[in-house]
């Protein structure tokens, strides 16, 4: 097994080196280094966005979600993702227009321009840093722990983490966004085929989809309906998740950058439709893996279950591919996020381009090192921030969408209320404030207040038409 994994890793690294040599940029500028030169076609746009979106969480977390909480997990992610596609195709075009008009370098910079206030940019940047770095750290730590379990006593966990972060930083620093997008495409194809092979093997174990569900029903009927055996899937849970996921293309800078740099509106439209189809096709095999686990490994830990479904119950070659696919998924999501944080910082710096790029590259390393440190000394609070990462960044959506969609001169109401909402959200997650108000979860309450702020901004505060 170790030999197979090492061979697969070596091939993966050789391909990465080949790609980075092809995309290496000597004279780095914001346009060619941070924005990949723009001009991204539909196929690469689709794969890079899908790979950024479907992280290692999809491969590890979704089968486990289906196994533990049942078929409602489909509503949680697949339905929300396709809702997101609709939002993307409706608002993406307006974002692109605004981005071109205001010389887009990052969402934070765009917020400074649209609100004519640095505070809006700092809130967008701060929100991204607070929620994305713990997410990256927890992802790296999860994969490292998994590798350590697959190959015990080979190297300590922190060496796995260090290796992943080192590959990520060297690769991003050398090739920039275009190299990352090539890696995403490679990872996307690899992951897609691997999980479908594993998913197919899971169905084959039962003989058919029908007998698979029949067997699950005999083991635990509650898995076949909501709210699931542990009562997680309430309507409120689904609504909060859907709102967070629908907002992703605008609140997660790694995705909004990809929307802006698409070659044409036609490419964006094809990419968005393709993303919806890919979401369904990627999540479907994780359902099969989850149902397989619900029957064969209902009581084991996540790590043991994934170890079985992805590695021990598969042929050696598929297992090695699965493992390297998992590492590649973690790398491609994390390097996109770290790189996006760099781009966000760049968009807030108003100095000569070459200097700004140098500073950004230093900070990409800093963000990577921070993620590495947090992945090694992962605390309960960090895990909490990572788990609530999508919902947390969604708090910025009303401010960002108002900035994108409004043609009025905007006041500071949205940046200030968003900053307050982010604080309330974090404090409520830490247990310093209540988690619900009048039976409504805090996320929904805060989102409702922010929507009210949007109405006030449009009707009361932001009346002057932008000249």
């Amino acid at each position, binding site marked *: 097994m170790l030999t197979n994994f090492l061979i697969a890793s070596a091939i993966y690294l050789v391909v990465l080196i080949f790609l980075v040599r092809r995309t290496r940029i000597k004279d780095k500028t914001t346009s060619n280094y941070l924005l990949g030169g723009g001009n991204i076609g539909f196929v690469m746009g689709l794969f890079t966005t899908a790979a950024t979106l479907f992280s290692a969480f999809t491969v590890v977390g979704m089968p486990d979600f289906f196994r533990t909480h049942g078929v409602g997990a489909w509503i949680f992610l697949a339905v929300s993702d396709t809702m997101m596609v609709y939002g993307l195709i409706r608002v993406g075009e307006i974002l692109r227009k605004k981005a071109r008009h205001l010389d887009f370098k990052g969402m934070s910079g765009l917020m400074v321009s649209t609100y004519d206030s640095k505070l809006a940019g700092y809130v967008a940047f701060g929100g991204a840093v607070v929620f994305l770095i713990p997410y990256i750290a927890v992802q790296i730590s999860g994969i490292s722990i998994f590798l350590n379990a697959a190959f015990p006593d080979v190297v300590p966990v922190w060496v796995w983490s260090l290796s992943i972060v080192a590959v990520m930083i060297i690769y991003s620093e050398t090739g920039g966004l275009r190299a990352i997008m090539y890696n995403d495409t490679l990872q996307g194809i690899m992951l897609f085929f691997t999980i479908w092979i594993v998913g197919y093997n899971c169905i084959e174990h039962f003989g*058919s989809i029908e007998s698979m569900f029949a067997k699950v029903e005999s083991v635990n009927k509650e898995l076949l309906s909501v709210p699931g055996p542990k009562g997680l899937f309430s309507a409120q849970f689904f609504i909060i998740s859907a709102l967070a996921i629908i907002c992703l293309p605008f609140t997660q800078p790694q995705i909004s950058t990809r929307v802006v740099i698409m070659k044409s509106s036609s490419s964006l*439209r094809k990419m968005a439709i393709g993303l919806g189809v890919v979401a369904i096709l990627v999540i479907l095999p994780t359902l099969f893996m989850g149902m397989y686990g619900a029957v064969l490994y209902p009581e084991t830990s996540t790590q043991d279950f994934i170890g079985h479904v992805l590695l021990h119950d598969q042929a050696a070659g598929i297992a090695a591919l699965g493992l390297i696919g998992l590492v590649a998924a973690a790398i491609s999501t994390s390097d996109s996020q770290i790189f996006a944080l760099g781009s966000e910082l760049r968009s807030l710096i108003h100095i000569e381009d070459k200097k700004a790029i140098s500073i950004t590259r230093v900070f990409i390393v800093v963000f990577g090192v921070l993620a590495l440190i947090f992945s090694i000394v992962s605390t309960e609070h960090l895990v909490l921030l990572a788990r609530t990462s999508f919902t947390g960044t969604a708090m910025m959506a009303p401010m960002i969408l108002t900035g994108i969609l409004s043609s009025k001169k905007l006041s500071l109401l949205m940046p200030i209320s968003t900053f307050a909402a982010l604080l309330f959200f974090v404090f409520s997650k830490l247990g310093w404030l209540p988690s619900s108000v009048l039976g409504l979860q805090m996320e929904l309450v805060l989102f409702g207040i922010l929507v009210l702020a949007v109405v006030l901004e449009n009707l009361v505060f932001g009346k002057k038409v932008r000249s």
Partner: protein
Amino acid sequence: MATNRKRSLLILDILAGLLFVGSFTPMVIPMGKNEPNFMGIPYTMWMGFVVSVLFVLLAYGVSRIQKRNDHAD
């Protein structure tokens, strides 16, 4: 022509809005019920699948309408 496009987009937005709201009602997620199933697939699963496909189709509809619109390029 532009008015027709706007009207078509409005219709799709209304349909998407209704589908969004409907997704969180017992129509799609009846609590504790897995019947009626379809070819052995539990209700919430196949209904959820249909909803996902409908959202992609609605997005495709928007893309067809926007095709001839002025855009950022």
